[in-house]
């Protein structure tokens, strides 16, 4: 088992080394190598999953990394139901995205560089989910952050791309800083970062306040990585990267790291109800905020990006209210349908000469059957239409919220249902504007064509996943396979009074249908994608002016302070000290250079004098 786990992590790393060192020689072969590395990793991940389903677990240190006093940090791996689900999801999605990239990135100058980064990303992500301590997890965390930055700015010649990369990196740093502080606090209070020890000691040692502080600091990190309010602003911009990257990193895997981390730390969050409530409220707020922006956005990838932010909000609602299984379940299904939709969007872009504006699309269904149908499956899944996968997981979250004891849980539930309506609406809006109706730009439409097989096959596979994964794993709701499987790690969700399960299901299905109906009506009337002078519309179109607010509240003041520091502190104080030191050294060396006669015997004389003096000091008692 340990060997398998090490191999899972090692294969992508080998791919990185080969592609990184020899990439420029390998050219196209680097794609094969990268894909093969992930394929092998995938195979072993499935093997591990089967083993874990058989009840096996693993928690073993491979190498002692840091030993300082009583503090120990090791390179070690932990495999249980949670990490098994995660590695299966990560390797599966990334394997198909590697295949897809083969067609999508064909002919790009940075082909082997792309695969190097992609493999590095998979490596880091696997380290993140397999780590058995927070510090190693942080290594993976930073690794995926780095890869995200590199891949967003992959086409670095484009200023917008490199700016977006920097934005993602800087925003993530804020979150990472919180995460680090959380780890420090953990080390300070518990003296360890090993999951097993932390969760074992925490109930006995930590006060509720300390637990809350740690949990909130960790959540700051999760906010950054998983694009929650107020740190979500980087994710829409991250769409500057290649579409497979958006699909893999910014929809399916990396952005879910925060959810995974919160679920992994469930013991801490259970000890700190306040922190859980904060998580849930931030989640629902983000879900609604992002969904509302998605309502009016016309960029196909950005709509998907806001949708991702919104869905991540749902996951946080789940883990925030203690329905960890539901959160991870949604994470799992979301990886399939959102990965699928991004890839399908990439396929559309491919067909439309990299056009992203939905207002120029339409009527593509006839030309791109596979893309269209798979996209539709993804849409149905995310809208929560049974029996597609999104229905099962989203419903489980909403049920979990309704039955939880978080303050205002019914309000969160209601807002969640409203969010579901909005989700359904913007997704169907996207479908209608892209695939149905009359072509708005005949020229583009004429050149549209279906993508090659290596791009459509992953679509079909992921569509199958979106179609079936939920029902297979989640039926019956609240008592499905996944509940039992993850229950060993995350505990079982309790069910309380109130509306019965059937009613809740009916309400969430209705929400999905309602969104569809609204979208269909507007499509019929031709008012989809048309700008309106409505102030609310303008507010949404400008994304609630969040970027502008940040600019005014954060960037401007920092810029001003920096300018002041430069003109006052740096030029006068620092330069003064540095120059003063220079003059001081110059003066001293002028004096000491008088001794520097260049005459070796004189040097020897001084040396001997020194020896004599030292010997005197030694010999005199």
């Amino acid at each position, binding site marked *: 088992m340990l060997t398998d786990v090490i191999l899972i992590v090692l294969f992508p790393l080998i791919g990185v080394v080969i592609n990184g060192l020899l990439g420029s020689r390998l050219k196209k072969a680097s794609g094969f190598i990268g894909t093969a590395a992930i394929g092998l990793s995938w195979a072993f991940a499935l093997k591990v999953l089967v083993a874990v389903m058989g009840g096996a677990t693993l928690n073993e240190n491979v190498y002692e990394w840091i030993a300082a006093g009583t503090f120990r940090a090791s390179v070690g791996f932990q495999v249980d139901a949670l990490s098994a689900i995660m590695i299966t999801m990560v390797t599966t999605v990334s394997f198909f995205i590697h295949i897809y990239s083969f067609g999508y990135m064909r002919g790009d100058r940075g082909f082997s560089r792309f695969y190097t980064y992609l493999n590095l990303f998979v490596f880091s992500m696997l380290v993140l989910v397999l780590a058995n301590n927070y510090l190693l997890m942080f290594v993976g965390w930073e690794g995926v952050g780095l890869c995200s930055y590199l891949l967003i700015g992959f086409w670095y010649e484009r200023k917008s791309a490199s700016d977006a990369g920097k934005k993602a990196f800087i925003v993530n740093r804020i979150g990472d800083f919180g995460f680090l502080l959380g780890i420090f606090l953990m080390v300070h209070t518990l003296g360890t970062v090993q999951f097993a020890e932390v969760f074992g000691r925490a109930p006995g040692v930590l006060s509720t306040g300390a637990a809350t502080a740690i949990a909130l600091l960790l959540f700051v990190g999760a906010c950054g990585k998983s694009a929650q309010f107020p740190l979500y602003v980087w994710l829409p911009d991250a769409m500057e990267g290649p579409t497979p990257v958006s699909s893999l990193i910014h929809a399916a895997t990396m952005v879910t790291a925060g959810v995974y981390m919160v679920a992994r730390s469930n013991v801490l969050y259970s000890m700190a109800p306040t922190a859980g409530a904060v998580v849930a409220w931030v989640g629902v707020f983000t879900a609604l905020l992002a969904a509302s922006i998605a309502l009016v956005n016309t960029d196909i990838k950005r709509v998907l990006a806001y949708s991702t932010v919104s869905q991540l909000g749902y996951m946080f609602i789940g883990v925030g209210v203690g329905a960890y299984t539901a959160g991870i379940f949604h994470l799992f299904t979301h990886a399939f349908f959102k990965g699928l939709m991004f890839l399908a969007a990439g396929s559309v872009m491919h067909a439309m000469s990299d056009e992203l504006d939905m207002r120029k699309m339409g009527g593509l269904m006839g030309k791109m059957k596979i893309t269209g149908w798979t996209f539709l499956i993804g849409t149905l899944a995310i809208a929560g239409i049974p029996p597609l996968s999104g229905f099962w997981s989203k419903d489980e979250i909403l049920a979990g919220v309704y039955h939880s004891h978080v303050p205002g849980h019914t309000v969160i539930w209601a807002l969640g249902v409203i969010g579901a309506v909005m989700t359904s609406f913007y997704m169907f809006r996207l479908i209608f504007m892209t695939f149905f109706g009359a072509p708005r730009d005949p020229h583009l439409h004429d050149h549209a064509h279906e993508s090659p097989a290596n791009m459509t096959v992953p679509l079909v596979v992921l569509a199958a996943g979106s179609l079936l994964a939920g029902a297979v794993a989640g039926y019956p709701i609240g008592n499905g396979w996944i509940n039992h499987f993850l229950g060993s790690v995350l505990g079982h969700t309790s069910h309380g009074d109130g509306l019965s399960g059937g009613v809740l299901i009916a309400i969430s299905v209705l929400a999905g249908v309602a969104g569809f109906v609204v979208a269909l009506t507007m499509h019929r009337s031709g008012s989809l994608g048309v700008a309106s002078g409505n102030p609310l519309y303008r507010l949404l179109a400008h994304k609630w002016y969040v970027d502008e607010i940040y600019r005014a509240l954060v960037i401007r003041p920092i810029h001003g302070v920096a300018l002041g520091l430069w003109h006052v502190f740096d030029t006068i104080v620092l330069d003064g000290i540095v120059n003063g030191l220079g003059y001081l050294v110059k003066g001293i060396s002028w004096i000491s250079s008088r001794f520097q*006669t*260049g005459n*070796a015997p004189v040097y020897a004389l001084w040396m*001997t004098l020194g020896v004599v003096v030292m010997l005197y000091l030694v010999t005199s008692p």
Partner: protein
Amino acid sequence: MAVPTSYYVILSAILFAIGVAGVLTRRNAIVIFMCIELMLNAVNLSFVAFARHLGHGDGQVFVFFVMAVAAAEVAVGLAIIIALFRNRQTVDVGEVNLLKW
């Protein structure tokens, strides 16, 4: 009658001091070099004396190493002196003050 070890040590110190005086007073690089050899040998003497005093071979092994290193040092040092002589036609260290810059 065995000679006390301290006699050897004092003799070694005398030779060493003579060597130091030679290094400091002479200006001929070769003679200075020879005085350095004298100092090394003075130390060797005390090594061997201590080896006997302690009844242990480490001191003698050290002398062996000193000799090996001294041989290397002499070869390099004399090569430097030859190179110096070729460039400046002198081995007077008083006239060699390139160390100043």
